[in-house]
């Protein structure tokens, strides 16, 4: 039951709301980047790596959201 609720919430949150390739690529790249950052030993380097992941994601989606 819990699994079903979580699945439903994830879908409703739009995380897997049938993304088309380009921006889905941004999301996938963010997930991959987070995974790599999580493996960094040092807390501060790990935190900085996570921030870099988020900056890369915003760079990735920027042309679609604010580009003309």
């Amino acid at each position, binding site marked *: 039951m819990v699994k*079903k609720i979580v*699945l*439903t919430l994830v*879908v*409703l*949150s*739009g*995380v897997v*709301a*049938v*993304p*088309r*390739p*380009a*921006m*889905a690529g941004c*999301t996938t790249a*963010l997930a991959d980047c987070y995974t790599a950052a999580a493996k960094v030993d040092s807390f501060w380097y790990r935190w900085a790596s996570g*921030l870099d*992941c*988020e*900056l890369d*994601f*915003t*760079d990735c*989606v*920027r*042309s*679609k*959201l*604010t*580009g*003309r």
Partner: protein
Amino acid sequence: MRRSAGITLLATALAACRTTVVRQAAESAVPVAPLFGPAVSAEVIGGKAEDDEGRVWLLAGGSAIVRVDLERREIERVALRVSSAELCWGLARLADGSLWTLKGRRTLVAIGEAGRIDREFALATPHFGLFASGERLLYQAAEFTPPAPALRAGIPGDEHPRPWSDVATRPFAALARASAAALNMISCGSSRTAERPCWFPDEAAVSLIQASGATRRVPLEGLEVIAPEILLTSDNPARPVRDAYVDERGVLWVLSSGRPPADASERPGGWVLARYSPRGALIGLQSLTEPVRLILRASGGRATVLTGAGMIAEVQP
């Protein structure tokens, strides 16, 4: 398995239902009449600046400046002399005529003759965007902790630009930090009055901002709004406001993504042109015969635009 698939289908349908169609009763399609060009290809335009004499500068593909002279019907393209590893974003023209952009996230550069980089300033923090107001640059810093000022103003080299306008980044409780930061990236259009239009990618509203920072928010009736989650995951997101321009009478011209015809090509641009009174009352909302990327100038009831095919064209609603 089948049950999970059913739940997924139901949930996706429910998510789609969150798409809020305010109203988009477009009248008959308005022809987009080419004047000259093409000025650009399908490359992304990362910034726009203009002067009072009908000249417009576009940052194309992150690595070239395209100057369009609307009066003389001339187009000139120069490559920026930057490394291919660091693309540029944002374009700002100060009152003294100097042209500025962001190289990567952390470097402010002045663009000189023939695409040369005249000056560089290292920025203390990463930035998302760059605009101009008079003699000051408007910086949009990469902000991950909303609410915070969306824009800060300062002269080039000023290490402590001050908050500009009442526009603040917005929290999105249901979204990840990076997604919220992306939705808080602001765009600003051109104006022939004292008020400059700026907007967020998910809102059918603009903030009209004076040089002093005085701000008034104008909701835009009739434009289609989609849920932020859908906006973030679309390849070609339907933005309520793709571009905005305030003409000399204070009429606000808005280019909106709208919905392309079923047989439309994949060219970039919006399919709806709307006009609003200075107070925000809807004057007219019409679909276009082809997609338009930018409003370059609007005056006397007609607009000069950049089309999805890269042509400079005219629209008379």
